[in-house]
């Protein structure tokens, strides 16, 4: 058997074998679990997989693989024949063998073959305990009962030549019996020379037998034949009718009629598989005809060369870019046809993109299943009992992410098993079940995939982390002491930190968590850890669905544009020039901003990137101009001509002379360039990158739970960008996550916010200490209402509840189309109705003079609508009292004082009701829907109470109102109530307690309870549902609240 030097064949064999091996592992574990009560189908599946590997290995001359898989196959055969119970040692030996086969396959060509003697001996000793020699799979006469009606006359051939058959089969050859007719013109026994030559050219004749006893005429000649050919090939090659070519296989399954061959010296009987050509499968799927394969359904997936996929991705990326370009052109012209084309283009591109992306999506179960083995082996080794629960294996993610997840997840799982879950006796002592539970879950949340690894072990001792960190001497004692629990937990990501008391083989060497964190952040993963001493640890990893195309915000510093992935962003803050000194402060060398009572560290992107100041803003023209003096000194300024033609820059050649003030600034900034905090000059206005009068734009980004602000010059646009890798010279830089190509063909770098914070030595520990009141800032008042402040006229301030809106878009006035007396715009392929508040309420109309305006997009039922406003001012959170009497009118639900100004709160529902009455009817929100059923509204704020009561009774229900849980319970006693609408945060008795009490009472336990809240948070929702709340809604979302009530009360 020659070594086939064919890389392609070898590669495809390896690919195939890896697939087999992947399945083998989890199947073996399942077999082990079933114990003596074997699942024959499963054993057969593993057997077949091993068999295929053996066959291929023999064919390719991979002797070690062949020998090992052969021994494993024999063992499996014994299990299959119920001669051997798959106990843990048996399965372990098989797993070891599979591992070794895997490693052998991964060996580069020409490497010294790994030693297989250990696992081989283990397998063989199980196989034949009395002799340490592997029993070769001899061929014995097949049970005749298995093939009734078949000529058995050649069975003798098989018996006689069993040794040769075995040898050839081990070499990967297929064994056949060919039935030739002795033609009348050939008198001598045997084959005609022509036929003999022909078939000898493609295989080996092992024996020839002429059946003289046969009554058939002409008498047949049987040829025992070994060949590499598939059966159907052989049929055509030998020129025989298919029924005369018998494929001799190792028995796939013992025939029910045959006695268990336990006493036979040759444990593997051969059988004859007669097949009609139509059902003949390729040889590598030997025994695919057995029942098991059909329902396995593994054929539904397709193996695609990753290069082809990558190419498709590039193409899709290009298409997206072209679209971006196209959309830019469209915006600047007015031709109707362009709009239609662009819509189509947009749609097709997105669809294509999605379709192609889906080819890269793989279920996360691919790696989850590996943990069965990891946990089993480790638990055995450590003497622990662990129940592994896997959930959400079907959740799909990009292949690259899945692959990148493998190592970090394995590490985390090992950690949990090794020093998370305690020894059984310790668990019992702690009052837990001796068997620990390790849960690995994957699920979707907010466009991301969340992976949770949860154990019910001992938890992480933060005191030990403290000790350890202090002993490392990297942090000040005061810093550590002031840390919050979750901050301490995050310290385990420090390099060199391990809290394991002793180093074990498994983990505890103090390398790992930092690497895990780094690897996860490379694929855009955000890592979090929560632990309760004695209760267990939960690790949460948030991952993007895909890496290839990501929504990002484009920002600029000077002339340069950068992309910040949206997954890293928390919010955008613009500090007006007049407020800069007030809100941005300097503590030591660091800049911080006061944001909702909390101090947020700031980094100037220009400082982080070391961008030297070359521009200043011309006061009169508001244009960025180039400081020429520095240009001459600055070698890098050669890049300017490329950047200068964009936006509103004047090119370097325009002969702009620097004004003296700028020169002074430059002088200062160049002096301070060495200190990382020259951004501090933002405070005194000397280094405001545009001008001292301009506002400061801050992108608040998150690194896990830690947030910081990046100061940029401009916020440009949000775009879906195609991520491209950087060249090898740039990959070392931790500041960039890649690059993208913009609509105009220019390159923009993608910022790595984690890398930037590291580069600038910003860490959660170092900053939080300076934060005076973390307690206070962490608490979010659930009754706080976040409002979007807008205005149409400088004199009148309006507010829209932020949690009712979906997006804000800036549009050109000419994008608003007037059709049928109504304003509309084309938006994401649909028509978006636009309203202005003044159409319904008596407020100032839109400003006519500006060419652009903002559209606040909000959902309404299944549709969307937009409110046009002239200006967006800010986003504020108010806890103050809302007044719903003074300014109430159609379209306005009330008012509140914000920034010392009376601010009217827009009633989106009221506006839709006035402008689009048919929408209300369509959504069955009209007064007809209620049937006088009784609804209890429990809400402490008079404003919200009246709002809720108002629209519930508008919908035709009878309303009873209570100010807190106590009143609510009293009302329940008195009145017959059909449904409860309750606030959560209330004095005396809050909504959760109220709900729990209602649920506890048999009379009301079945009552629908809808919780209403000002802000939706998943944690709060979880708590609510735990207490017994049926639904969780946003207070002012009238349409949804009514809709839900209707749903619950529809009998």
């Amino acid at each position: 058997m020659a070594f086939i030097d064919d890389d392609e064949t070898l590669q495809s064999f390896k690919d195939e074998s890896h697939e087999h091996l992947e399945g083998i592992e989890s199947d073996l574990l399942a077999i082990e679990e079933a114990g003596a009560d074997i699942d024959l189908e499963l054993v057969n599946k593993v057997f077949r997989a091993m068999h295929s590997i053996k066959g291929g290995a023999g064919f390719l001359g991979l002797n070690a693989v062949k020998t090992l898989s052969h021994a494993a196959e024999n063992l499996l055969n014994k299990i299959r024949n119920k001669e051997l119970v798959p106990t843990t040692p048996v399965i372990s030996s098989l797993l070891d063998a599979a591992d070794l086969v895997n490693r052998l396959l991964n060996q580069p060509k020409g490497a010294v073959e790994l030693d297989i003697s250990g696992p081989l001996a283990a397998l063989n000793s199980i196989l034949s305990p009395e002799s340490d020699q592997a029993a070769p799979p001899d061929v014995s006469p097949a049970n005749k009962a298995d093939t009734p009606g078949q000529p058995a006359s050649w069975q003798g051939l098989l018996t006689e030549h069993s040794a040769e058959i075995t040898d050839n089969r081990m070499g990967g050859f297929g064994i056949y019996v060919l039935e030739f007719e002795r033609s009348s013109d050939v008198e001598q026994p045997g084959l005609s020379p022509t036929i003999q030559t022909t078939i000898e050219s493609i295989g080996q004749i092992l024996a020839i037998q002429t059946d003289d006893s046969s009554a058939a005429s002409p008498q047949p000649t049987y040829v025992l034949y070994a060949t590499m050919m598939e059966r159907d090939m052989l049929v055509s090659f030998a020129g025989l009718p298919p029924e005369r070519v018998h494929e001799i296989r190792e028995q796939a399954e013992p025939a029910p009629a045959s006695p268990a061959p336990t006493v036979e010296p040759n444990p593997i009987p051969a059988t004859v598989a007669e097949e009609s050509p139509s059902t003949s499968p390729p040889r590598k799927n030997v025994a695919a005809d057995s029942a098991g394969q059909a329902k396995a359904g593994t054929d539904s997936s397709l193996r695609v060369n990753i290069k082809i996929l990558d190419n498709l991705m590039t193409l899709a990326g290009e298409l997206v870019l072209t679209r971006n370009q196209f959309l830019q052109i469209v915006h600047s012209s007015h031709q109707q046809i362009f709009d239609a084309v662009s819509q189509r283009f947009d749609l097709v591109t997105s669809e294509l993109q999605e379709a192609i992306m889906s080819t890269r999506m793989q279920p996360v179960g691919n790696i989850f299943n590996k943990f069965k083995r990891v946990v089993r082996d480790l638990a055995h080794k450590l003497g622990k009992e662990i129940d592994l629960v896997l959930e959400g294996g079907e959740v799909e993610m990009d292949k690259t992410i899945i692959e990148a997840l493998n190592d970090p997840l394995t590490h985390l799982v090992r950690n949990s098993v090794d020093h998370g879950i305690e020894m059984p006796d310790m668990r019992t002592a702690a009052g837990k079940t001796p068997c620990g539970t390790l849960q690995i879950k994957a699920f979707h949340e907010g466009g991301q995939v969340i992976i949770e690894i949860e154990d019910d072990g001992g938890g992480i001792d933060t005191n030990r982390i403290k000790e350890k960190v202090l002993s490392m001497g990297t942090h000040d004692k005061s810093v550590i002491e002031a840390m919050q629990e979750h901050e301490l937990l995050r310290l385990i990501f420090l390099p060199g930190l391990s809290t394991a008391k002793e180093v074990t083989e498994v983990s505890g060497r103090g390398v790992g968590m930092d690497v895990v964190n780094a690897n996860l952040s490379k694929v855009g993963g955000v890592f979090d850890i929560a632990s309760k001493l004695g209760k267990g640890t939960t690790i949460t990893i948030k991952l993007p669905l895909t890496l290839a195309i990501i929504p990002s915000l484009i920002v600029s510093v000077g002339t340069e544009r950068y992309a910040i992935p949206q997954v890293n962003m928390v919010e955008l803050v613009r500090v007006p020039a007049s407020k800069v000194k007030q809100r941005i402060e300097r503590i030591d060398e660091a800049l911080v901003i006061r944001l909702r009572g909390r101090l947020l560290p700031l980094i100037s992107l220009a400082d982080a990137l070391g961008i030297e100041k070359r521009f200043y803003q011309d006061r009169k023209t508001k244009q960025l101009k180039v400081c020429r003096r520095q240009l001459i000194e600055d070698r890098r300024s050669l890049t300017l001509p490329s950047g200068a033609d964009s936006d509103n820059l004047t090119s370097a050649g325009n002969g702009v002379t620097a004004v003296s003030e700028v020169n002074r600034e430059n002088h200062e900034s160049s002096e301070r360039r060495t200190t990382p905090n020259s951004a501090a000059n933002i405070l005194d206005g000397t280094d405001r990158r545009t001008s001292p009068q301009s506002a400061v734009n801050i992108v608040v980004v998150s690194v896990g739970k830690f947030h910081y602000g990046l100061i940029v010059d401009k916020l440009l646009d949000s775009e879906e960008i195609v991520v491209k890798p950087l060249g090898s010279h740039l990959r070392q830089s931790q500041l960039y996550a890649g690059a993208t190509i913009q609509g105009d063909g220019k390159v923009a770098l993608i910022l790595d916010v984690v890398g930037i914070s590291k580069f600038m030595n910003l860490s959660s520990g170092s900053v939080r200490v300076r934060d005076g009141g973390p307690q206070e800032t962490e608490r979010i008042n659930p009754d706080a209402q976040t409002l979007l402040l807008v205005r149409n006229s400088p004199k009148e301030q309006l507010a829209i509840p932020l949690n009712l809106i979906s997006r804000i878009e800036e549009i050109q006035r000419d994008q608003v189309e007037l059709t049928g007396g109504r304003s509309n715009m084309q938006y994401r392929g649909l028509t978006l109705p636009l309203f202005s508040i003044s159409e319904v309420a008596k407020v100032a109309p839109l400003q006519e003079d500006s060419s652009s305006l903002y559209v606040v997009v909000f959902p309404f039922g299944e549709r969307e609508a937009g409110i046009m406003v002239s200006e967006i001012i800010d986003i504020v959170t108010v806890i103050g009292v809302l007044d719903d009497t003074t300014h109430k009118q159609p379209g306005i639900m009330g008012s509140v004082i914000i920034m010392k100004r009376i601010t009217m709160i827009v009633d989106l529902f009221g506006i839709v009701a006035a402008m689009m009455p048919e929408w209300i009817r369509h959504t069955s929100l009209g007064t007809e829907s209620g049937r006088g059923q009784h609804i209890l509204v429990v809400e402490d704020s008079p404003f919200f109470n009246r709002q809720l009561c108002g629209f519930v009774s508008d919908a035709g229900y009878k309303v009873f109102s209570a100010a807190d849980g106590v009143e609510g319970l009293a009302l329940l006693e008195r009145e017959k109530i059909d449904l409860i609408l309750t606030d959560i945060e209330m004095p005396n008795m809050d909504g959760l307690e109220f709900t729990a009490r209602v649920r506890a009472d048999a009379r009301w336990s079945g009552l629908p309870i809808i919780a209403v809240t000002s802000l939706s948070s998943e944690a709060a929702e979880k708590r609510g549902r735990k207490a017994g709340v049926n639904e969780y809604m946003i207070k002012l979302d009238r349409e949804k609240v009514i809709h839900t009530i209707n749903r619950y009360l529809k009998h």
Partner: protein
Amino acid sequence: MQPSPTANATKRKLALFESGHLLCGLDIIHVQEINKNIAVTAVHRVPEYVRGVINLRGEIVTVVDLRTKFGFAPLSQEAEEQIIIVRLGDENIGLLVDSVSDVVIADEKDIEPTPPNLAGVPGHFFKGIYKLEQSLVAILNIEELLAREFE
């Protein structure tokens, strides 16, 4: 270095270009294409010789400034530069040069070993010196030149 398949075994084609006062040659098999007027996007906090990145039909290509690499003074800002795209391993890299002048066929026998130092530039950046009639051509060793320095 392999000779170009079309050339005689003892001859090789060299693309000639200037960087500072140095006349350099680059075996033509390395050269993918030569570009002019491509917008280079600056990249900060990277080795100084990396001028930036360009968009080469959808691929992000790192541009190395040969003058900086050689330790020469930068070209005046108005001057036009050219970018030679070379293939190194599985990556395209742009070499920023003053100007590409010619392609010559060099006879192997006219190539001499590089002195340890060539006009202040370390000799290991070059594979040899080719003598033209009036001038000397320093043949670039791009593997050495573009070897990554990890600090």
